[in-house]
């Protein structure tokens, strides 16, 4: 008797999942409801419970993709029924469209070596010289060859080895045992899979399908700061510490009510103006070695929420994002996105944020910095927040954008208007 362990359908649009880790080993017993495997969808990881008990037979290993409802494992009632283990396939060629498996770095050459690695293009070197260089992890690409047509021969390599690391470094021949592509040495590599691949694909797709342009400007943040400080002082009362992002989310929601075409999507040959204002709030995930992930959880129906509610919600979503517990519904259904890059520092100001499809606009704001402004004919120093609004010119013309920005600027510079 056997039951399948399948990729569960976690969201309406989900088509594939990838096996991340089996929690139970091949041939081991699994109890019903026990977590048996962790899978990953485009942006979410998920622990799958066993639907039955039995001895586990693994069909798809870590890195393998499968379609929703496809069996990735089997549970057998008796040990005798267990088939032989399937050979590990490792990183598959990926059934997820747009996913490319990672290339593996070339293995280090053993001393006294067997067949050396592929010779970089354009380098002329004799076979024995290459074997010798690779056995000593010497980057021969920077050696000047004394042979015909600049061919590097064994004596050249012996000389380079004898000259020692200083001379080698002087001629930029650093000992390097990694991969070399087109003469460039590879420091490290990151897989373009999972969330990263999804973001990459989405960004590219967005730029391809829409007519995006970005209008940029600044707003005087004096009143914004004052308002925020006031609200922060009342943290205990509100039950949440209000942030600039929270305020922006609330304000933008009100502006969108006034200029609904910025809260729309092109579907087929129609521009759908949404009743719901679902704000995507860009969240930067904890920094890893080289990068920090990006995810955009959605505050659903912000049009019904108070500033406090929005603040609480954003915190909750940010928490979930950082701990990797966002559900699929948390990251889908947005109608407008806000990206506050203030946290990245003063340098990150003017930029052209990319619209999150199928939305029609995205507002990015930068850090608040002091700038000289002209107020009443005089140059004064004011705290200034810059904004970058990218909109899809297929759905929206300049006029509504101008209106949106005018109202946004008004609210930010005169928050009391929000009450009116």
């Amino acid at each position: 008797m056997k039951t399948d362990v399948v990729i569960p359908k976690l969201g309406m649009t989900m088509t594939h999942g990838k096996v991340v880790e089996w929690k139970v080993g091949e041939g081991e017993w699994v109890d019903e409801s026990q977590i048996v495997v962790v899978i990953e969808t485009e942006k979410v990881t998920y622990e799958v419970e066993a639907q039955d008990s039995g001895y586990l037979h693994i069909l798809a290993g870590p890195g393998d993709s499968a379609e929703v409802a496809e069996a990735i494992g089997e549970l057998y009632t008796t040990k005798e029924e267990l088939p032989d283990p399937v050979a590990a396939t490792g990183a598959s060629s990926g059934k997820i469209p747009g996913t490319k498996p990672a290339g593996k770095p070339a293995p280090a050459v053993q001393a006294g070596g067997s067949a050396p690695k592929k010779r970089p293009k354009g380098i002329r070197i004799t076979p024995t010289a290459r074997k010798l260089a690779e056995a000593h992890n010497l980057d021969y690409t920077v050696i000047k060859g004394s042979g015909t047509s600049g061919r590097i021969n064994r004596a050249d390599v012996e000389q380079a080895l004898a000259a020692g690391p200083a001379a080698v470094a002087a001629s930029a021949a650093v000992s390097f045992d990694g991969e070399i592509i087109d003469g460039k040495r590879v420091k490290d590599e990151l897989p373009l899979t999972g969330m990263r691949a999804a973001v990459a694909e989405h960004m590219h797709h967005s730029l391809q399908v829409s007519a995006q342009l970005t209008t940029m400007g600044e707003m005087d943040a004096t009143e914004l700061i004052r308002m925020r400080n006031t609200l922060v002082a009342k943290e205990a009362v509100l039950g949440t510490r209000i942030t600039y992002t929270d305020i922006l989310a609330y304000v933008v929601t009100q502006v969108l009510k006034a200029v609904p075409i910025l809260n729309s999507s092109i579907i087929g040959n129609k521009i759908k103006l949404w009743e719901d204002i679902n704000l995507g709030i860009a969240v930067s995930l904890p920094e890893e070695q080289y990068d920090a992930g990006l995810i955009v959880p959605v505050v659903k129906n912000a049009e019904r929420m108070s500033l406090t509610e929005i603040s609480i919600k954003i915190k909750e979503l940010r928490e979930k994002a950082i701990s990797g517990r966002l559900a699929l519904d948390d990251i889908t259904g947005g109608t407008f996105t806000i990206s506050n890059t203030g946290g990245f520092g003063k340098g990150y100001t003017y930029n052209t944020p990319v619209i999150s499809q199928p939305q029609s606009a995205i507002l990015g704001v930068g850090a608040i910095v002091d700038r000289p402004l002209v107020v009443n004919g005089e140059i004064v120093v004011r705290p200034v927040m810059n904004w970058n609004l990218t909109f899809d010119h297929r759905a929206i013309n300049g006029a509504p954008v101008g209106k949106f920005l005018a109202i946004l600027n008004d609210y930010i510079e005169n928050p009391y208007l929000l009450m009116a």
Partner: protein
Amino acid sequence: MRELMYLQAINEAFAEELERDEKVFLMGEGIQTGTFGTTTGLVDRFGPDRIMDTPISETAIAGAAVGASLMGYRPVADLMFSDFMYICADEILLKAAQWRLMQGGTQKLPCVFVANIGGYRKLGNEHSHCPYSMMLHSPGLKVVVPSTPYDAKGLLKTAIRDNNPVIYLYHKGLLPVIGEVPKEDYTVPFGKAAIRREGTDVTVVAISFQLFWVEAAAEMLKDEISVEIIDPRTLEPLDIDTIMTSVAKTGRVVIVDEDTERCGFAAELATQIMEKGFYDLDAPIKRVCAKNYPIPGGIMEKFVLPQPEWVVQAIKDVMVD
């Protein structure tokens, strides 16, 4: 030790083997007289039934050698000039080479085909060939190319004692060369190359007569280049291991072979070295061979057959490649 000329060493080998085994006999045109001295005097000792003068009939001589060897005799067919082997190519390359396997692999054909090779006497294209690549291309034949009097005697004895067809090729230019030749019975095994000179910079493989120019070149260049000289002695079986050990040491190779360059033994050896020791090579392999022309007679011979200067230049060139 006693010294003999190369041709005398051959004569002595014949005499000893004729004495040793009554099944051995020689056939050839004018061998009782002995055009080159290699068979002179043998008839006085062994009689005309064992030293048989034949009509000018290469196909009959070679074919009869094959036939007689099938019936337990050990005939030596002396074809005089290896160029004439083309006349009885069927008998040597198809019959002798292939008969054993063709008939089921149980018969023995202990026959030897002897002839001289080589030029430098302005004899022209029909008395100057070194056709051993043709023989090598017919599996079933062993091919022997002695370069010293010691090897001439030892290899001929091994050839006559071998139970397979052997082509024994002696070089005209080596006939008067003097060297140490033991009086006693000794043999030189097939498939064992001789390292004529040890060196570290370049491996030079020299066949037959070319050995002497290579030795002279090595001596001349000794202050600049350390030359290692390998003399294969037998081309089939070939001692490729000794050659490869040398290549691993030096990384550079020059093959000196008097035969025509195109599809010659040097081409075969170069390919084997590339296949077996690609990662030991520090430069492309060089060949010094006869150029791809019919060998001209007279003065023009020197523009086709390998010359000593070509050998020196090739060794120098391979070092700077």
